[in-house]
Every structure is written in structure tokens, then in C-alpha cells.
């Protein structure tokens, strides 16, 4: 697949939307088609990637110009983000018509996230990160009803701060090595002395940790999750966080870092997980609970990635993203945008049984119940972590899983409570959204029973990640 | 042959049990400086009860009484009485103890089904009290069974042969005392007569019985006392090879019990439990620790 399309087509669409007639249904249809196309294109491309490929932009030879890299890893992540995006678009179809601005913003956002994943250049990564953030902020504030503006403001300030740190990091890297190309940098990384390497590395990591919602840089996240509508939260949980995670593990594999750095990040990941789960236990609002749970999920992923369970982490990322997106959307449709505290959710399955089922399958997948996708990935993570002799961290992970299982079953129990009479009749959501979400839920169960297909992808992605030589060769090979 | 022996055992149990009850009335009377009824008074009473009309409160009321009497008769057959050893070859102590529980259950069921709250309270008290006295009893027996590697009553009687000093009474003195105290509870003697307590709850479980019901329960009571003391005699007093000698031992133990109980007041119901769990249980555990640690000398 040609990565240029993945960025260019959405961007083009964003501009085209202003040229097209001002019809909401037309806009919606247009962006839906584009999302569908990019998704199909990326997924189809995923299955015929033999080795990693680099595409130089603008006719520059690779270490000097910007390049995009497609290998199994980046393609895997593009697939995840594309699926999240597609699900969001479809699920909100009929309930939330895209107007011109939001459609354009969403398309820009999609292009930026794809760019974040596909790029092979540090500065280009920064640019895409900023575009993604700006379009996300704009989306967050587009609708008057959406949550706390102050939370958004805080998020923006933090984001700007973290980006500045990243820029300083870039300055330092460039001064020391004279390159910003990731592959080239990985060759020249040894030039930097160890102490400065750690500093620079952490500086580069800062905005990625912020995007990937790792403690203490995730303090902004729960409020955004709790206060925003489903569209935004799914974009956050299903796209921004995975993209940040991708950039992080890419840097980890390309740039060697000290054991202390890895260990402290591991501890941060564990802290993220534990804090997220324990706080989620106390939240009464379902969206906030899901928000904290997403944060905790990112902690789990980073923890697994740093303790030799990369394959499981990638598989789990897929499951988490899918389940989270599905849950956020089904909560939105279940409550019809209304109150979402546990008490008021009692017995809502009578109102919208399909969405209740979808929520339950997402919840059980994240909680790691057998027969659901999340169980298989957790199993692999556990097994690999144990093999790497991380006994204590595994125990903490297990503890977090208990807490997680508890609050998810509690939420599902409330939704399926038969002890409450619910006012009003059935309020089914749009048939298309129902159908798509049901398909996603069934896919979750299917993956739980036959995980081989997704696991094979995760395995290939993991191979691509560890094979730094091939990555570097594909980028610099043309020299 | 077995059938004849069984009949002999049952008749012995009934006759001697009723005789013991007569002895009890006489002894208590003498202690209280009364003249007392004749020793055969109980025979007269039972015969009279069976000939009188009676009141029933339903099917379970009848069946419970039959269960009570039947269970006791069955238990009796497992206990060796001198040389009369009908089924005592398989006379496992645990089986005997639990068979007696069938009788108690039957009686409790029947009494509660009378619908009288006094009966319920009485049964509750009986069960509570049983919770108290059975534990020390069983703990001592546990030590004995461990030490002798047998749970057969006959087996325990046989190992004590050869002189009075071989009796478990002297080899296991603390245990003997504990079991002796527990026997007051089993036979419902003062201070362990809270379930009956005529002054408080109008004879408790017995309150609704009349005629043949009361007759059957009197028989049962007589048999329970006989079985109980027979076990004690077998386990602690070396049993007996002679039928009459055995009965004599039973009579002696019973008389001692009656004499003691006739001068002791009644416990309150929770006092029974606290007392039993405090001293007898303590000594029972001590005894079984000694038995487990050192065996029998």
C-alpha cells in the first residue's frame, strides 16, 4: 500500500468538503465513503506486506527528506486507528450528522493520526501530532454542549508544553547527530553520551507519554473522557492513544535506552494501571469509569511492552481499542446522550437491548472473561511476563484485573438489572449503527474463540518491531 | 438363637431400666427423708399409661414417638450386656452414639409437632444442652479410641480384663469423670434437667403427652438410661463376663448418679453450655492429649 494515500486522501477530502454543496447528508456520506476506502485500503494492504518499505516525499533522498515507512507494525496500527474511526463514523450515523466543519476536522484528524503512525521522521511526527491535537481540540469545542471548556484548555496547555519539550529534544538531537530521520538516528544514536541520551530520549518521549495517557502525564485525560461526547472519546481512546503508543514503542526499538529508563517507565506504567483501575472502581458515571479504564488500559499496554510481552501487548491493543470504542459508542446510544451514572442506567437493557449486548461484550472483553477477545490477549501477556520473571508486576497486574473485572461486571449488572421498571418504551438506535456495533461485538467474541487471525497480524507486527535492521535497511537502503 | 438373645436383651433393657427408675424414685425419696413409692411403681405406671386413652396431634406426633422408642431399642441391641452380645461384634461406638440421636430426633419432632410452645422451648433446651455435654464425652472417647485402636465397645471392655486395676476408671481417671458428668446430661438428671424443668416450662417436651405416648416415652427413657450406663460400664468398668454382675455394676453407677443429682440444683440453660465447655471439655481435651501423647499405661 502506498502510505501517501492514507494521508493525502483524508486531507483532500477535508478541503473538498468546503467545495461540495452544503448538505449534511452529503457530507456524512462523503466522509463515510472516504473512511471506508482508507480502511479497506489499509487492511487490504496489511496482508501483502512482505518487508518494510520506505517512501521518500517530495523527491528528496531519504535521510534528508521526509519519508513514510510502511511495515507490518505501522500497518497494524493504521488498521487499528482506521477501524476505530470507521466504527465511530458508522455508529454515529443517523444520530449525529456531520456538518461541514466537523467533517473537515475529522478528516484532518484522520490524516494526522495516520501520518503520526506512518512517518519516519521525528519532526514530521511533531507536525502530525500538532495537527491531530489542534483538530481534536477544535472538535472538542465544536459543539456547545460538550463538556468542560476548562478541561480542554488545560489539555491544550499541557499539550503545548509537552510539544515544546519535544521540540527542545529535537533541537538537541539535531545538534548532536545532525539528523532527524528515525532510521538514520538509530545508526547515529551512539554518538550521544549516555547521560544526555537519556535526557534527550525522555524529552522525545514526553508528548508521546501524554498522548498515550501514562501517569503522571494523564492527569488531563479523565475529565476529557467524562465530559465529552462519544465521538471524541472514541477518537481519543481508539486513535490518539494507540498512535502515541506506536510512536513510543518505535522509539524504544530504534533508540537504545538505559535499563533505569526502562524500569522507571515500567513503574510508571504499573502506576498508571493501578491508579486507573482503582479510581475507575469508585466512579459512578459510566463515561468517567470508561475513561479511567482507558487510562489503565494504556498502562497495561506499556507495562506489557516493557516487560517482554510485546506480542501480547499488540494483540491487547487491538482488543482494547475495539472494545473501548464499542463501549463508548454503546453508552452514548444507550443513554441517548443523557445521564450515565450507574443508578440511572439500571434496567436500560429493556430500552435498547442491542446496545446493552454490545456494551456487555466490550466490557467482558476488557475485563478478560473467557470466550471474549481480551481474555486471549491478557493470557499471552501474562504468560510472556511470567516467562520474563516479572513475578511481582504480574501479581499487580492480576490485582488490577480483579478490580477491573469487578467494576465492569458491576456496570453490566446495572444495565441488565431486572429489578427496575424503566420508563418509556424501546428506543432503538439507527439500524445501521446497531448493525455495525453488533458486528463489532460479534467480532470481539469471534476473536475470543478464534484469535489466530488477529494474533498472526500482531505477531508479524512484533517481528517488524524487533527487526530494526530491516527497518533501517529499508529507509537507508536507497543511499 | 440370635432372636432369643435379642429378645433377652430387649426384655432386660426394659425391665431393668424400669427397675432403675423405681430405684431412682426410692433413693431420691430416702434422701429427702420421704418414704417413697415402691420399687415396682414404674411398672404399674407404664401398664396404666398404656391402658388409658390418649390425645394425638397428628401423624408426625405418632411417628416421632415410634422413632424414639424404635431407635432406642435398635441401639440396645448393639451394646454388650455381660455375655449377651447380640450384635456387639459390630457394636461400633460411633454408630451407637449416632443411633441414639435418631431416638432424640424422633422425640424432638414429635414434641414440637404438638404445637405447644413449651415443648418447642424444651426441645431447644435439650438440643442446647446436648451441644454442651456431648462434646467432652466424644473428646474423651476420641482419646480412648486412639489409644486402643478400636472403636468397638466390646473391644474396649475386653482390653481391661485381668484385675480391677486394669479398669479404664483407673487408667483413664480424668476421662472417666468427664464421661460420668456427661452421663447426667444424657439421662437428664439434675443439674442437667433444663429441658424438663417442670417448674419453668411445664415438663417441656413432655407437656402434651398422655396415655400410650407417655408410656412409650417412659420406656424409651428407661432404655436410654440403661444403654448409657451400660456403655460406661463396658468402657470404664471393664464390662463383665457375668450377666448379673454386669447389672450390678449398672445399678451401682446409677445409684451414685441418683445420689449426687438428688442434692444438686438445676443449671440455667446457658449455664449448662458454659459449664460443659469450660471444665469437662477442658479436662476432656487434657485427657485426650495425654492419651494421644502417651497412650494407655
Amino acid at each position, binding site marked *: 500500500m502506498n502510505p501517501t494515500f492514507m494521508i493525502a486522501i483524508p486531507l483532500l477530502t477535508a478541503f473538498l468538503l468546503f467545495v461540495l454543496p452544503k448538505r449534511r447528508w452529503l457530507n456524512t456520506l462523503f466522509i463515510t465513503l472516504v473512511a471506508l476506502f482508507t480502511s479497506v485500503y489499509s487492511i487490504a494492504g496489511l496482508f501483502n506486506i512482505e518487508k518494510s518499505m520506505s517512501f521518500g516525499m517530495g523527491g528528496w533522498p531519504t535521510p534528508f527528506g521526509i519519508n513514510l515507512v510502511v511495515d507490518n507494525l505501522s500497518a497494524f496500527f493504521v488498521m487499528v486507528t482506521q477501524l476505530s474511526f470507521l466504527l465511530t463514523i458508522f455508529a454515529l450515523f443517523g444520530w449525529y450528522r456531520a456538518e461541514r466543519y466537523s467533517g473537515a476536522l475529522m478528516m484532518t484528524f484522520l490524516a494526522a493520526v495516520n501520518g503520526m503512525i506512518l512517518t519516519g521522521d521525528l519532526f514530521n511526527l511533531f507536525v502530525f501530532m*500538532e495537527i491531530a491535537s*489542534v483538530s481534536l481540540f477544535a472538535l472538542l*469545542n465544536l459543539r456547545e454542549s460538550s463538556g468542560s*471548556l476548562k478541561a480542554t*484548555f488545560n489539555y491544550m496547555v499541557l499539550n503545548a*508544553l509537552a510539544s*515544546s519539550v519535544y521540540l527542545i529534544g529535537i*533541537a538537541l538531537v539535531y545538534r548532536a547527530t545532525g539528523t532527524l530521520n528515525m532510521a538514520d538516528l538509530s545508526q547515529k544514536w551512539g554518538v550521544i553520551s549516555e547521560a544526555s541520551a537519556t535526557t534527550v530520549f525522555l524529552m522525545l518521549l514526553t508528548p508521546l507519554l501524554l498522548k498515550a495517557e501514562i501517569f503522571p502525564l494523564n492527569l488531563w485525560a479523565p475529565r476529557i473522557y467524562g465530559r465529552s461526547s462519544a465521538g471524541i472519546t472514541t477518537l481519543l481512546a481508539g486513535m490518539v492513544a494507540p498512535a502515541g503508543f506506536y510512536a513510543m514503542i518505535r522509539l524504544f526499538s530504534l533508540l537504545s535506552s538505559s535499563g533505569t529508563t526502562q524500569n522507571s517507565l515500567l513503574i510508571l506504567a504499573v502506576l498508571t494501571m493501578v491508579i486507573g483501575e482503582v479510581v475507575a472502581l469508585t466512579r459512578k458515571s459510566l463515561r468517567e469509569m470508561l475513561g479511567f479504564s482507558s487510562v489503565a488500559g494504556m498502562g497495561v499496554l506499556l507495562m506489557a511492552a516493557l516487560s517482554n510481552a510485546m506480542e501480547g501487548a499488540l494483540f491487547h491493543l487491538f482488543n482494547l481499542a475495539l472494545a473501548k470504542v464499542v463501549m463508548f459508542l454503546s453508552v452514548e446510544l444507550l443513554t441517548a446522550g443523557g445521564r450515565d451514572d450507574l443508578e440511572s442506567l439500571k434496567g436500560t437493557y429493556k430500552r435498547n437491548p442491542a446496545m446493552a449486548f454490545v456494551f456487555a461484550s466490550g466490557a467482558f472483553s476488557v475485563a478478560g472473561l473467557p470466550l471474549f477477545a481480551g481474555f486471549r490477549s491478557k493470557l499471552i501477556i501474562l504468560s510472556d511476563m511470567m516467562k520474563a520473571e516479572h513475578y511481582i508486576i504480574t501479581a499487580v497486574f492480576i490485582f488490577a484485573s480483579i478490580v477491573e473485572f469487578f467494576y465492569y461486571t458491576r456496570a453490566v449488572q446495572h444495565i441488565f438489572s431486572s429489578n427496575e421498571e424503566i420508563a418509556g418504551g424501546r428506543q432503538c438506535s439507527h439500524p445501521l449503527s446497531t448493525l455495525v456495533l453488533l458486528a463489532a461485538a460479534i467480532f470481539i467474541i469471534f476473536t475470543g474463540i478464534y484469535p489466530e487471525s488477529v494474533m498472526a497480524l500482531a505477531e508479524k507486527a512484533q517481528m517488524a518491531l524487533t527487526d530494526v535492521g530491516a527497518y533501517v535497511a529499508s529507509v537507508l537502503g536507497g543511499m | 438363637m440370635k432372636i432369643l438373645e435379642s429378645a433377652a436383651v430387649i426384655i432386660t433393657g426394659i425391665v431393668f431400666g424400669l427397675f432403675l427408675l423405681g430405684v431412682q424414685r426410692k433413693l431420691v425419696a430416702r434422701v429427702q427423708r420421704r418414704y417413697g413409692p415402691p420399687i415396682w411403681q414404674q411398672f404399674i405406671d407404664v401398664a396404666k399409661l398404656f391402658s388409658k386413652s390418649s390425645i394425638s396431634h397428628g401423624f408426625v406426633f405418632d411417628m416421632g414417638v415410634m422413632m424414639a422408642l424404635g431407635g432406642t431399642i435398635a441401639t440396645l441391641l448393639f451394646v454388650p450386656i455381660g455375655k449377651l452380645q447380640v450384635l456387639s461384634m459390630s457394636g461400633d461406638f460411633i454408630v451407637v452414639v449416632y443411633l441414639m440421636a435418631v431416638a432424640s430426633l424422633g422425640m424432638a419432632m414429635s414434641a414440637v409437632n404438638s404445637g405447644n410452645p413449651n415443648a418447642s422451648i424444651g426441645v431447644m433446651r435439650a438440643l442446647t444442652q446436648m451441644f454442651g455435654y456431648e462434646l467432652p464425652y466424644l473428646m474423651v472417647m476420641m482419646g480412648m479410641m486412639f489409644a486402643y485402636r478400636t472403636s468397638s465397645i466390646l473391644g474396649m471392655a475386653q482390653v481391661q480384663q485381668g484385675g480391677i486395676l486394669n479398669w479404664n476408671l483407673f487408667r483413664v481417671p480424668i476421662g472417666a469423670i468427664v464421661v460420668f458428668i456427661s452421663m447426667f446430661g444424657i439421662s437428664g438428671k439434675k443439674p442437667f434437667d433444663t429441658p424438663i424443668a417442670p417448674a419453668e416450662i411445664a415438663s417441656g417436651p413432655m407437656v402434651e403427652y398422655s396415655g400410650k405416648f407417655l408410656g412409650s416415652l417412659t420406656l424409651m427413657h428407661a432404655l436410654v438410661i440403661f444403654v448409657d450406663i451400660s456403655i460406661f460400664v463396658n468402657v470404664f468398668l471393664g464390662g463383665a463376663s457375668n450377666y448379673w454382675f454386669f447389672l450390678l455394676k449398672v445399678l451401682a453407677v446409677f445409684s451414685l448418679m441418683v445420689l449426687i443429682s438428688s442434692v444438686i440444683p438445676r443449671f440455667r440453660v446457658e449455664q449448662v453450655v458454659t459449664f460443659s465447655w469450660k471444665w469437662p471439655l477442658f479436662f476432656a481435651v487434657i485427657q485426650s492429649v495425654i492419651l494421644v501423647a502417651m497412650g494407655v499405661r
Partner: protein
Amino acid sequence: MNLYTFTSLLLIAIGVYGLLSQRHLFKMLVSLSVLELGVNILLVSIGYSKDGVAPILTPPEQIINPVDPLPQALVLTAIVIGVGTTALMSAIIVKIYKRTGTLDLSSNRGEDE
């Protein structure tokens, strides 16, 4: 350490201090801009070499002491992005003011905690 680097670090420090000490939203925005300015100067200062010549429209053989052009390109992009962010944030501040009637970050008015 040359003057440019020093200046940029000073600006960054001022910006960070401003962000942490100010409660007023616009003051925070200004601090952020100062911070970004500092970072941009830092970026430019990387490519700086004393008496250097910018390699624009100069034949390659005449360049003895060239200035690295890449940081300058980067800074251009960064400035554009910074402008975009600043504009968006000002819009949000205006919106906050409209809704809550205050520009104080620490006040809880209009918040549904």
C-alpha cells in the same frame, strides 16, 4: 553556550514560570507564547554558525561557512503550528469567558464537578 541559546533558555524559563504562577487565562496564553518563542530561538540557534552564510541562491562552491538551513525550515513550521494553537486557545478562552463570565482558571464557576 552562545547568547542565542542563553536567551532561548531564559525565555523558556519565563514562559514556564508564567504558566505556573498565573491564573488568568490570557496571561497563561501569553506565557505559552513566550515559551514557544524560546523554543524556536533554540531551534534556530542550532543551525547558527558565526559569520555563516545562508545557502540560498549562492553557488555551492562559494559557501565556506554555511548556516544549516534545516532548523530554519523547522522553525517556520513550528511557528505556523504555534500560531494555530494560539488562535484556537484564544477562541476557547473567549468561549470560557462567555460561559462562565470569568477568566480565572481556579474559580469553579460554571463547572459541574
